[in-house]
């Protein structure tokens, strides 16, 4: 089993919430990753801030779930889709130094 397997306590930090959201550390179930994606993050401003500002940019599993599933599949009554397109992108959220894609100057 994973060393950081989650317990049933409310997360006290972004790292603890990350463990709740990752299927590897919180398997599907009544309080599994699906519950935290469907119920807790969309309805808790503190979790939302951790999620969008810290967790997505630092966890490959959550990052993939958001971009590949939660946004395009309109999870949680379109919460992720709406927040992504109306807030996260327009307001320039979350510093990310992992990758940089410089604009190309190649013309026709």
């Amino acid at each position, binding site marked *: 089993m994973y060393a950081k397997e989650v317990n049933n306590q409310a997360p006290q*930090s972004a790292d603890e919430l990350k463990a709740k959201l990752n299927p590897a550390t919180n398997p599907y179930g009544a309080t599994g990753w699906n519950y935290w994606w469907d119920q807790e993050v969309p309805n808790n401003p503190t979790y939302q801030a951790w999620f969008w500002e810290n967790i997505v940019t630092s966890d490959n599993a959550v990052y993939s779930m958001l971009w590949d599933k939660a946004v395009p599949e309109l999870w949680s009554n379109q919460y992720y889709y709406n927040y992504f397109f109306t807030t*996260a992108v327009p307001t320039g959220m979350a510093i990310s130094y992992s990758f940089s*894609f410089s604009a190309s100057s190649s013309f026709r």
Partner: protein
Amino acid sequence: MPAAASDKNVKIFTDISTAQLPDWTQHYKNYLWNKAIPELWANQHYYQYFFNTAVPEQTAQSYYYNKFWNNLVPEFTANSFYYKKLWDKAIQENWMANSSNPYRTVFWETMVPAGFGPQSASPKDIFTESKDKVNKQYTWANHYEYYLWNKAVPEDWSGEAGPPIGNSYSYKWTFWTYMIPLGVADNFYTDRFWSKAVTEGWANNYYYNTLITAGNESWAGGYYIPN
């Protein structure tokens, strides 16, 4: 509940992230513009939403509309992905013709006449044949205006050789048979054509030279036949 210190850290981090940082340091913008849309992530979800809804319907208080027309295209973002999609596809194929802002209509009737899109290319290859470059130099401040007058029309961007057939939206055909004769955009093209493009020798005299022979060309629609 989260500790107060954690809340404070999140707040500070948020403030920093929105303070005049370039797009590539901002996670969601960076990945959306450079990866998710051009690489057609999630079965084209981001690509389809952006081109079919976000831009033409001006969602998020026109954020995507302005971003597309004012930055992504003229700044050649993502290896010119947006630039090529607009010039090679969206305008010529008349994308989203029934939407609030069809690409073709917005381009011809708003972007070029209104001067959208900061010019990021150096228009150094124009006016080389001008007889009076100093006095007649035109300021190409607009990406769309520059590329239309100096590239797309003179070079007949469309990939089609010969006269257009049927419902063609090639730049050359649209310009000579529609924009000039009909005085579209409050005569923006008509006025500029006669007062500047022809007389000042724009695009190495393309407009002047083409006008001379346009009366005999079927694509010119008969408008240019001398009286």
